[in-house]
């Protein structure tokens, strides 16, 4: 027998066989990882306490002219939000994190929409619903209450119920 046969004693077909078997193992391990991911979502869904939102003074109506905006943090210091005084004389506030990839949303140039400059997603300024682009969900809305000239935030609506009017008439 030739020397190279002694040195490389594994046939090509055998080598492929082992490689594919190992690839199969890898795929099954990936499948297990995804199952664990689904279990993690299940655990997060059912073993999480409902969040209690603080009542926070956001702004005074006199501070924001019609068409103006104000940035604030709610419910925590790491949760940027944006408050609008719309052309229809309403105060509405949303989380400033785009629901696509969490870029900071800004008022669009036309003053009627909210824009995510990263991937050109657009949201309605009136209710936060997606108008255009890649965002999969509406912007979470900050629930507002007006007391005199003070605007208070008291909760966050993730946008499941579009009928809810969380804004405040100016």
């Amino acid at each position: 027998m030739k020397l190279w046969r002694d040195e490389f004693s594994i046939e090509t077909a055998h080598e492929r066989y082992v490689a594919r078997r190992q690839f199969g193992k890898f795929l099954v391990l990936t499948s297990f990882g995804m199952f664990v991911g689904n279990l993690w979502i299940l655990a997060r869904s059912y073993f999480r306490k409902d969040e209690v939102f603080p009542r926070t003074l956001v702004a005074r109506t006199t501070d924001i002219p019609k068409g103006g905006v104000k940035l604030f943090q709610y419910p925590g210091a790491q949760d940027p939000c944006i408050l609008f005084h719309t052309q229809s004389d309403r105060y509405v506030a949303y989380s400033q994190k785009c629901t696509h990839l969490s870029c900071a949303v800004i008022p669009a140039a036309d003053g009627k929409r909210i824009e995510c400059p990263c991937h050109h997603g657009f949201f309605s300024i009136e209710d936060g619903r997606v108008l255009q682009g890649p965002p999969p969900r509406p912007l979470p809305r900050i629930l507002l209450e007006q007391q005199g000239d003070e605007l208070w935030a008291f909760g966050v609506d993730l946008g499941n119920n579009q009928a809810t009017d969380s804004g405040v008439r100016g």
Partner: protein
Amino acid sequence: MSEPRQTARGLTALDGAISLIAILLIVQMWLLTATLEAFLAGHREAAIPGAVLSGLLFAACFGLYRFIEGIDRASGESTLTKPT
């Protein structure tokens, strides 16, 4: 049956099993994405069916993996991976 022919048959079966696992994996990937999307949107009701279906898909993948092991044993190829 001669060894090369047996190996070729084993390889065909292995390819079939891996293809099925890959298809199941794609479905499982979509399922995880959809469940995560629903969770982030505040819909908790999708979590249980998502986890159950994902478990079933994993069980199917694992079953196919056992099938591969069965082929392995039948064709006697397992000795290839062991040091002699």
